[in-house]
């Protein structure tokens, strides 16, 4: 699904991640690692949000650098702690993302109802709580027809009722469109809530399968 080639990321000359070659299998991959190990950095690079050395390919064809537009149309992202301009409403952000990601009209309705967001989605995001912002960022990540959805700490600040809803969306998306998921999370998912999940570990500044 996604392949990393000669990937490296440095901050002020200090290498924080170095992955010579790695291929993510289709399905759901759960990236684990200690605080500061580089999970978010890797996910942000895969989402095309942060610069890095090397290349990332989707389905062996689309490079995040060379075919950036096509790549970004198929790889969606939700940040760990999302922030949006406070004067924008949730609805305006949804319209922006849906148009950019080429989603069908009213695609968001299913997700907004699922997380009970219809009552406040027309309000400016400056009035949202962190949990409401998180839900909005998750809805945005499902818009369009993504091949891969990257979710950084998707469970943080979510209320207990929202977690099974998110898991059901992931199962549905995977079954209907074959979408793969890349997650980082410190919290464990409830047993059986998601189909087989491949666990990955970031340690010693690189990504590998746990022993």
């Amino acid at each position, binding site marked *: 699904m996604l392949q990393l080639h000669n990937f490296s990321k440095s901050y002020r000359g200090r290498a924080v991640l170095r992955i010579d070659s790695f291929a993510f299998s289709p399905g759901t991959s759960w990236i684990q690692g200690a605080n500061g190990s580089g999970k978010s950095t890797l996910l942000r690079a895969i989402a095309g949000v942060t610069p890095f050395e090397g290349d990332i390919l989707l389905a062996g064809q689309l490079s995040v650098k060379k075919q950036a537009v096509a790549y970004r149309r198929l790889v969606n992202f939700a940040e760990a702690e*999302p922030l949006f301009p406070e004067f924008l409403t949730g609805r305006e952000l949804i319209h922006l993302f849906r148009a950019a990601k080429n989603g069908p009209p009213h695609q968001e309705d299913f997700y907004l109802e699922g997380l009970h967001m219809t009552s406040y989605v027309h309000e*400016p995001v400056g009035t949202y709580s962190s949990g409401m912002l998180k839900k909005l960022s998750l809805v945005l990540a499902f818009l369009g027809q993504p091949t891969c959805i990257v979710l950084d700490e998707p469970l943080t600040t979510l209320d207990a009722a929202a977690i099974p809803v998110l898991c059901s969306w992931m199962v549905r998306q995977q079954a209907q469109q074959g979408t793969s998921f890349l997650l980082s999370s410190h919290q464990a998912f409830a047993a059986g809530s998601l189909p087989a999940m491949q666990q990955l570990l970031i340690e010693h500044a690189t990504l590998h399968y746990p022993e």
Partner: protein
Amino acid sequence: MKNPLTRVLLKVVARGFYQEHTGWLISLFLVVFVNFFWTRVPSQNHLTEAQILENGFRLVLLSVSEPIGVAALLGVCFVYSLKSWNYVAGRLKSVDVQFLAYSSNALPWRQQVTSWSVVQGVILLPVVVLCLYAMVIGVIFHHWLVPLLLPVYLLLLTVTGAAYYTRLLNDTVVKPDKRAGLTWARNWPKPVFSLFLYEIIATKRVTYFLTKGASAASIALLLLAFSDSRTDVRLAGMIALCCAVGHFILIFQASEFELFYLPFARNLPYGRGQAYGQQVLLYGVLLLPELVWLLAAGGFRTGLTAAGLLLSVTLLLRTLLYWTGQHMTSYLRIVVGLFLFLLLANLFALTGLLALGSALAAGLLLYRYR
């Protein structure tokens, strides 16, 4: 300084103020302060020493003796304070200083105001120096009233600022946040390029008006200084360069806004051409008053060249931040260096070439970043 709140506030607020406004302060120093301290008057060989002194101190004496001078001095102090109030109010909404809203306001009100007064005093240091100088020179030349009233005025500005900040931190649960407002624009279209323009309307109005004021002042001063060559493309180019560089704080803030609030935009499937187009649109709207003035006042060909230079240099200043990152000091050095280089090249009537070169350089920097 031993007060822990004062120490923290100095670090997170006062230091940030000086870091963000270094450019403004240098401009203010070069344009206002230097002349205020000593006004250079050429060919004074025939004057006595007392007359030379009086000429040199003309501006500062005006500021403590004549109503218009006093109003100008008080006005500079007030506008400076207003800018600082606006900055601190914005800073207190930043994510990294939210701890102040659940720590500092547990102290007695008086202690909070005292700490904030120290911080506001440090922020006001440049105008305090200006006023102290005016007081000393005023007293030496036997003007008593204004020099005696100036400390009271400065104290008033300091305490007002301190009380305002204290109220902001203490009223967090009383007053609903108005920032999320812009209710009148709720149904307006908000394409990605326009988001920073809305941010200006919501939170950066003072910076915007000060920038536009500086732009207008630089146009007026250059026209006054070169009144006999108004149709010269080099003068139009010089005006364009001054206006572009005058916008560098807004450009810096636009970059900050993009980094902080719009990281998601980098995940949207926009090509490099589209990203460049968005920047052209943003700065085209931001610079609209100056662009219209250049096109209307300079004649079509000259105006078009100067307008092109203004837009392309502004784009270059923006894209330079992709390369330097959000580091005001190093950015400022590059801006000043670039400004001097462009100013010199413009004197050789290379205005059109500079416009083209800047647009290409901006495109190249954006291309490398994306």
